[in-house]
């Protein structure tokens, strides 16, 4: 076949892959079509890879076969071994790998291009002339795209590694004190530090573009971007994780996009922008769900508001503790029950026990639904995945806006391991750090049962007046144990 024909078929295959990527993502708009959508996406990837191998002028097979084999085996093992509770950090890790691949490809392309130019220059000089500027082989687009791939790819990798470590709740000891990785780690003078490293990244990017005869600037850029990725991720803690995970997801797409501009490849640009757009939308949804701007999440951290009421003022003498037996009596003849899960359910892996109680109450004629706040948990959709794992039908998982309008007809709301997302202060106190954040209005339900180990505050570090309301009962227990005890008590009654 002629080279032009091969190139045409290859590009048509890339077009087909792009269409299938879009179709695949479209499948994710409904749980019923989602499995097929995901398979469509993987078919698209397969087509793109085969077209590349078939038409790509490949002269060195061993590296490729080794890379594909190692990558596939590692991918399968990691994906099948990870329990559903480990999903957030696994997704974070895979995300980082995508970013790493982007800056590695850009680095390889730059080195290859430098080699070409050096050879061509030597040849031209041997022939007694100089190499015409137009033949240097490195356009401005190529160099800018190289710098962008290096910068975004490296930030993505190292930011994702930090995020995965936080999601895995790693901890370390320093100077005899134990630090949790998942806490927000605030370095002194961090804004100045971040600013300096960011400027350094820009300077190195410019040097990459201005000095295309050496790859040194590129590697300096990758290192500086790695430091930047780490610095911008470590201050983000706990409940803000969904935002940073979504943002890094977007970056991995943009890194692929930049690599597409390096090698002039449409399918990279299309697939990369789809992912970039997807991550940005998720980021904005997460920020809106906390009524905070992205800048606020990235640069500021929530502190306790100095003038807010203290925990003692809010709770003193108003907390009613309850037991499984008392709750079982409450469930007697109940019509409508709503369960509001939070990160505590994930920590205690209570989703199966939660489902069991839900099924039990349903078998006794109650209507049971699950109200899920967009930022409940540590990543977008975290609670939904856990409840789906426990075999809860997806039409019972209700979005915040949908459930809020009907909460006043709910007999019992069970809040399990959630705190800030049900704190009515968000509605009432404009000076509170969570002011204006949309919450699930469980305080409007007839009775609220809060399952929590203690009265300790949530991520926003403020007391929750919900716990002190007349219609609230506190069941101080571990989430999983609490549900097991409630199930036993309901069965006995």
């Amino acid at each position: 076949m002629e080279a032009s024909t091969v190139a045409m078929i290859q590009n048509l295959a890339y077009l087909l892959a792009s269409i299938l990527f879009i179709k695949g993502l479209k499948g994710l708009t409904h749980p019923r079509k989602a499995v097929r959508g995901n398979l469509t996406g993987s078919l698209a990837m397969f087509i793109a890879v085969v077209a590349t191998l078939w038409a790509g002028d490949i002269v060195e097979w061993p590296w490729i076969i080794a890379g594909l084999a190692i990558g596939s085996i590692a991918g399968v093992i990691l994906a099948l071994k990870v329990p559903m509770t480990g999903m957030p950090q696994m997704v974070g890790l895979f995300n980082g790998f995508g970013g790493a691949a982007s800056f590695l490809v850009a680095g390889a392309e730059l080195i290859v291009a430098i080699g070409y130019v050096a050879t061509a220059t030597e040849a031209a000089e041997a022939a007694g002339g100089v190499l015409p500027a137009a033949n240097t082989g490195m356009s401005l687009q190529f160099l800018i795209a190289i710098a962008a791939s290096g910068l975004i790819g490296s930030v993505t990798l190292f930011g994702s590694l930090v995020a995965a470590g936080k999601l895995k709740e790693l901890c370390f000891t320093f100077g005899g004190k134990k630090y949790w990785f998942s806490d927000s780690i605030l370095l002194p003078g961090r804004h100045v530090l971040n600013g300096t490293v960011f400027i350094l990244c820009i300077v190195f990017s410019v040097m990459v573009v201005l000095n295309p005869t050496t790859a040194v600037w590129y590697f300096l850029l990758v290192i500086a971007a790695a430091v930047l990725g780490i610095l911008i991720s470590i201050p983000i803690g706990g409940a803000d994780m969904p935002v940073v995970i979504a943002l890094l997801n977007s970056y991995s797409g943009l890194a692929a996009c930049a690599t597409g501009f390096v090698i002039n490849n449409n399918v990279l640009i299309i697939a990369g922008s789809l992912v970039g757009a997807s991550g940005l939308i998720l980021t904005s949804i997460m920020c809106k769900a906390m009524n905070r701007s992205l800048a606020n999440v990235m640069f500021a951290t929530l502190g306790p508001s100095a003038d807010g009421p203290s925990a003692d003022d809010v709770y003193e003498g108003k907390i009613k503790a309850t037991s499984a037996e008392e709750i079982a009596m409450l469930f007697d003849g109940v019509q409508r029950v709503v369960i509001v899960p939070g990160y505590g359910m994930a920590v205690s892996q209570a989703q199966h026990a939660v489902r069991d109680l839900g099924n039990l109450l349903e078998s006794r004629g109650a209507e049971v639904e699950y109200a899920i706040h967009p930022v409940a948990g540590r990543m977008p959709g975290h609670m939904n995945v856990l409840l789906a794992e426990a075999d809860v039908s997806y039409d019972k998982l209700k979005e915040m806006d949908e459930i809020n309008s009907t909460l006043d007809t709910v007999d019992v709301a069970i809040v399990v391991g959630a705190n800030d997302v049900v704190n009515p202060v968000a509605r009432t106190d404009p000076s509170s750090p969570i002011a204006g954040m949309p919450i699930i209005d469980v305080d409007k339900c007839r009775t609220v049962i809060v399952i929590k180990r203690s009265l300790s505050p949530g991520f926003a570090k403020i007391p929750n007046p919900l716990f002190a309301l007349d219609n609230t009962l506190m069941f101080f227990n571990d989430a999983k144990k609490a549900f097991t005890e409630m199930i036993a008590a309901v069965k006995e009654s």
Partner: protein
Amino acid sequence: MGADLVLLLTIFVLAIFVGFEIITKVPPTLHTPLMSGSNAISGITVVGALMAAGKDEGTTAAVLAFLAVALATVNVVGGFLVSHRMLAMFRKKG
């Protein structure tokens, strides 16, 4: 370079719009599988990695390209597989 760049930019901008249109319709319940699935799609860099690894241009470039192929493949295979595992759990009963 001028015309090519404009063409690539056109594709880039249009694809972003398509992405926004589709993704805003994804329900919150599927946000985690969406992330891992789109994450796998960002492993499309594997195409660039394969092209780079297929060239015979010295050891440094070959090592970088090899690592890129391996990491991008983990991203692709692992990403689609975890999404499949999660999505297969979303069932409607009754």
